Structures are given as structure tokens and as C-alpha cells.
């Protein structure tokens, strides 16, 4: 019995050591990545508000995330006396667990995917990441505080409303692939030679808005609206538990950005991967890293202390190393053509990873840009936008894209030719959107009163 069990464990490890190791790496690295995303967000916020942002810890505040992490870890851990202790303990863990688990389904490059080739790929990612809502709702309930409960209620209502729109947007994009497997989705885009964002722009827009609402980001951050609810569902959480919620929120951002990248923005494909005369774009990643390194070197004399100057040089040399790694698979075949086959998998892995992370970063940057540009919605406005505008629009769009695809197969169109049928469909969807908005306006005029706000609207 014991021997059989041991044998089974060994067999299991033999089969699955690579995914286990990758999973462990992600759990270890992700908090650091999230910390730096927060730093970047603060820097972007500072830039948009014409100030400097964190500058004290390390040059340009580069070590700020580590200082923040230390602070959060050694903070006092407070559990309210009347809280439901067990649920209070469980809730943040649930949120983080769901976020981390859904990362397992994502493919960062053609070879780098923890749960390799699952048949239901994209559904797995979307479905598991939606479970994080229980962490928010249960945390809000367990705190035994009215602000928390309000935040929890708002967030569950918001998520349920926008999940439908997001799902419909995914369906319109999936119509082009005919598969849920993440690899097949990207390969379909590489085969057609065109990203689905061009074929289904309305679906991309719907997914963009819905994904902001689902991750509780501004302008839809009603569950944690500080001017109304203190901090919403996180009000009673402090220290490490609070940082777990934070981690979950940013993990969810990464997940929705990755789903959008995979489905609409061509996953790990280079822009115009099928156009041979644009192959010089392969040098772009390396040149970008060299430029960043050069900028760091230029800034060295401006640093106030000797230590900070050395730190800048270190960052610059790190950039150069990354640039060398990125350049090697492109330059080597040019010097020695016989190496092309040997280098190909490295090229796919390294450059695929670069482009994937680049697109995900752009998507997240767009989130931040919106956050500092658009003021927060009111809760009833948010619900109306979801139910009266996005859901009808996304359902109409699914129908239109389906019709366009049938027309496309009738005329035997492929790749860029598909634009001939999908562009009219997108235009029709836009007309439908305008009609919906017009009907809304008319209804408002008829009622001649501001929308009645329900009791959890603040």
C-alpha cells in the first residue's frame, strides 16, 4: 500500500515536474511583478498629474515595492471582534487562489504554458478567475461592517452584470477560431495573418469595458469607492490580508489583459508576423532594451548619491543583457545560416514572450490611463451602462459577426479579405449602438426625471 502510493507519487512527479516548477515560479515571482506594476502605476499617475511620484527608496523609487512589501508584512494584523473569523481568514486567500489558478491556463509563448493544451483553454481562464468574486463577497460579509457589506454587494452585482457582456464578446471572437484551446486561437490568427481585433472591433471594445468593470478598476471601482464606502469590502482588512486582496486585484488585471491579448491582439505573435518585408521588426525588442539602457546611462550623472549612480549603471547593464538575449536568435542566423533551425525554438520562445508581455503591458497601461482620466461612475449609471447598452450591443454583435462569417465562407474569403464582410458588420453594430443610446435618451426625456437610485447606490 505504502509502496504503491510512493510509486504513484514518483510517477506523478516524473510526468508533471515541469508544470509544478513553473507554478511554483509564478507564485514566487508574481508578488514582485505586481509590486512593480503598482510602482509603474504610481509613476504614471504622478506623470499625468505633473509630479514625480515615489523618489526616495532607490533611484527614482525603484526599490519602493520592496519597502512597501516589508511594511505590509510587519503591520499589525487586526481581525474585528465581531467578525466571522474563519470566513474572514478564508476570503482573501480565495481571491488570490482564483487569480493564481487561472494564470495556469495562459500561454505566454508557444512553449510556455503550465496547463499544456487544455481543450477548454480560454473558458478555464475566464471561469476560474470569476471565482475570485467569492473572496470579495465573503470578505465583505465576514467583516460585519456596513461599508464592507455594501462594497461586497456592489461588486457581486457588478460582476454578474458585466460577465454576460464579456462572455458574448469572447463568443464573437471565438467564432473565428472554432476552438477554445489557447494555442489554436493564436495559431488561427497567425494562419489568417490578421488579428481578431480588426475583424471584431466591437467585441474588443465590449470586452475592454467589461474587463475594467470585472476587475473593479476606475472608473468602475464602485466596490471600493473611498468617498462613499471608505474602502468597500477591504475596509476591515489590514496588513498582509489587505495586501492579498491587492495582489488578487492586480493578478486579475493581468489575467483579463492576457485573455484580451490572446483573443484579440494575436497573443505572442509579432505585429504583421506574416509579412516578410516587415521582418526587420524582429530587431525592435533588442533595440528597445538598448534604448532603455542608454537612457539609464544618460541619467547617471543626475543621481544624487554614489550608491544610486551605481544602481543606475546596474539597471543599464541588465537592459543590455536582456537586449543581447533578445538579439541573439535574430542575429545568429544572419551570421551563420546553418544555425537557423537550431535557433528557431529559442526565437519563438524569447520573442513570443516579449511580444506577449509587451501587449499585456499596453493593455494594463490603458487601464491606468483611464483611471486617471475619467471620473468615477455612479452605481445606477454603471448598471444602466451594463444592462441597457453593453449586453444588447454584444448580443447584436454576435449575430452580426456570425452572419459576416457565413458570408465570408460563401465568398471564400480569408485573412485580410475577411475585412470585406466584417467591416460592414462592425458598422451595423455601431449603428445599433447609436440606436440603443438614442432610445435610452428618449426614455429619459419621457420620464423627465433623473434615474431613480436604489438603496445600495451610496
Amino acid at each position, binding site marked *: 500500500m505504502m509502496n*504503491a*502510493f510512493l*510509486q*504513484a507519487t514518483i*510517477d*506523478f512527479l516524473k510526468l508533471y515536474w515541469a508544470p509544478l516548477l513553473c507554478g511554483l515560479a509564478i507564485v514566487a515571482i508574481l508578488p514582485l511583478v505586481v509590486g512593480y506594476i503598482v510602482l509603474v502605476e504610481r509613476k504614471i499617475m504622478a506623470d499625468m498629474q505633473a509630479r514625480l511620484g515615489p523618489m526616495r527608496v532607490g533611484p527614482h523609487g525603484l526599490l519602493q515595492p520592496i519597502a512597501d512589501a516589508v511594511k505590509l508584512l510587519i503591520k499589525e494584523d487586526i481581525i474585528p471582534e465581531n467578525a*466571522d473569523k474563519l*470566513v474572514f481568514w*478564508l476570503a482573501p486567500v480565495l481571491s488570490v487562489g482564483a487569480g493564481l489558478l487561472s494564470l495556469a491556463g495562459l500561454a505566454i509563448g508557444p512553449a510556455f504554458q503550465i496547463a499544456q493544451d*487544455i*481543450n*477548454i483553454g480560454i*473558458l*478555464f481562464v*475566464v*471561469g*476560474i478567475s*470569476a*471565482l475570485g*468574486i*467569492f473572496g470579495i*463577497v*465573503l470578505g465583505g*460579509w465576514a467583516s460585519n461592517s456596513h461599508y464592507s*457589506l455594501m462594497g*461586497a*454587494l456592489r461588486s*457581486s*452585482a457588478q*460582476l*454578474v452584470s458585466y*460577465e454576460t457582456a464579456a462572455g458574448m464578446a469572447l463568443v464573437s471572437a471565438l467564432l473565428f477560431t472554432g476552438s*477554445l484551446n489557447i494555442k489554436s486561437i493564436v495559431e488561427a490568427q497567425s494562419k489568417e495573418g490578421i488579428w481578431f481585433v480588426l475583424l471584431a472591433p466591437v467585441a474588443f471594445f465590449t470586452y475592454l469595458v467589461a474587463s475594467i468593470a470585472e476587475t473593479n478598476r476606475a472608473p468602475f471601482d464602485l466596490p471600493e469607492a473611498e468617498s462613499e464606502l471608505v474602502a468597500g469590502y477591504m475596509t476591515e482588512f489590514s496588513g498582509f490580508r489587505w495586501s492579498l486582496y491587492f495582489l488578487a486585484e492586480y493578478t486579475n488585471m493581468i489575467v483579463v489583459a492576457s485573455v484580451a491579448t490572446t483573443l484579440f491582439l494575436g497573443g505572442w505573435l509579432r505585429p504583421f508576423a506574416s509579412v516578410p518585408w516587415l521582418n526587420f521588426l524582429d530587431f525592435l525588442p533588442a533595440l528597445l532594451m538598448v534604448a532603455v539602457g542608454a537612457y539609464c546611462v544618460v541619467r547617471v550623472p543626475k543621481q544624487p548619491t554614489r550608491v544610486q549612480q551605481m544602481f543606475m549603471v546596474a539597471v543599464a547593464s541588465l537592459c543590455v543583457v536582456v537586449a543581447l538575449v533578445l538579439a541573439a536568435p535574430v542575429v545568429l542566423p544572419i551570421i551563420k545560416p546553418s544555425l537557423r533551425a537550431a535557433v528557431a525554438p529559442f526565437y519563438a520562445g524569447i520573442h513570443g514572450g516579449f511580444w506577449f508581455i509587451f501587449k499585456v503591458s499596453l493593455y494594463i497601461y490603458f487601464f491606468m490611463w483611464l483611471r486617471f482620466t475619467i471620473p468615477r461612475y455612479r452605481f445606477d449609471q454603471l448598471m444602466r451602462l451594463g444592462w441597457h447598452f453593453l449586453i444588447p450591443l454584444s448580443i447584436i454583435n454576435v449575430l452580426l459577426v456570425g452572419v459576416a462569417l457565413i458570408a465570408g465562407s460563401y465568398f471564400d474569403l480569408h485573412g485580410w479579405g475577411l475585412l470585406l464582410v466584417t467591416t460592414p458588420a462592425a458598422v451595423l453594430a455601431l449603428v445599433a449602438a447609436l440606436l440603443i443610446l438614442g432610445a435610452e435618451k428618449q426614455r429619459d426625456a419621457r*420620464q423627465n426625471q433623473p434615474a431613480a437610485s436604489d438603496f445600495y447606490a451610496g
Partner: protein
Amino acid sequence: MLDKVLFYFFAGIAVASAALMVTRRNVVHGAIFLITALLATAGIFLQLRAEFLFIVQIILYVGGIMVLFVFVIMLVNLDVALQQIQFARQKWVALLVSLALSAQVALMFWSSGKMPGQGLPVLTAAAAERLPPNSETVAHSLFESYLLPFEIASVLLLVAMIGAVVMAKKKDVTP
């Protein structure tokens, strides 16, 4: 070996949390145990290589219906609800029905043990690589073999949905 361990793990969690769900007095705890039971069932689906059923179970039951359950529980005034009688007094009927059900299940097991191939079907596991992709299989059976029942069911659901909207709308008729 590993299969058996996983099966008993999931099955044990499902049964235990189902029992806990019924016996907890706190409604939110009950909801949490119901979620655990549903997730464990999803795990068994996954073990049967029914990936599509696994994710549908999670998206629909856990991510959709249970979120609405929890939402409603939080809108209900729990302090008042706790003072009311929580259980319907149908002990004897419930006992009778559950006894009849377990007798049925026991009979099935007994008869299949007695005459192999008669009661429970004896299934042999297919090799993993020979299984057809799961979501495609589900789609084929839904939209080819059972198209009419599928459409009838969807019309039924649509009717229920419209009915719910109409009933909810009745309250605030705009002048």
C-alpha cells in the same frame, strides 16, 4: 492508484460538505459548503475527462448561480431570519422518501453484483489520446443528435426568463 486517491478525495469532500451544508445554522456557511460541494463535483467531472462539463459546472453553478444565492442571502435580514423557524416540519415524509431512494440505489448495486452486466454498466477506460475533444463532442450531440430537445429546452428557459422580467417589472409601472 492516483486516480483512486483523487476520486475519493473529491467524493469525500463533496459528500462531507453536502452534509455540512444541510446542518449549518448560519446561511452563509451553508452557502460556502454548497460551493465546496459543487467544486468537488466539478473535480470528479475533470477526472472523468469531461473538461467541458467541469468548466460549465464552475461557470454556471459556482460563478453564476451561487453568486446570486450569496447576493440574495446578503439582502435578506439575517437577524430576523434566524429567529424564524428554519426547517419545514416534514420529518416523516422526508425519511420515507430518502429510505425509498437509498433502497433503490442499494438494489441497483446488489443486482449488478449478482448478475454482472445487468445492473450498473461495466465500463472500461479509454486511452487518453483516443478520446475526442470534449467540447466538440458536447456540441455535436447538442446540435446534431438532440437538436429538437435542445431547442425546446431553450424556448422553455426563454419563457421563464421573460416571465421573471415581466413579474419584476409589474411593481414600478411608469406613468
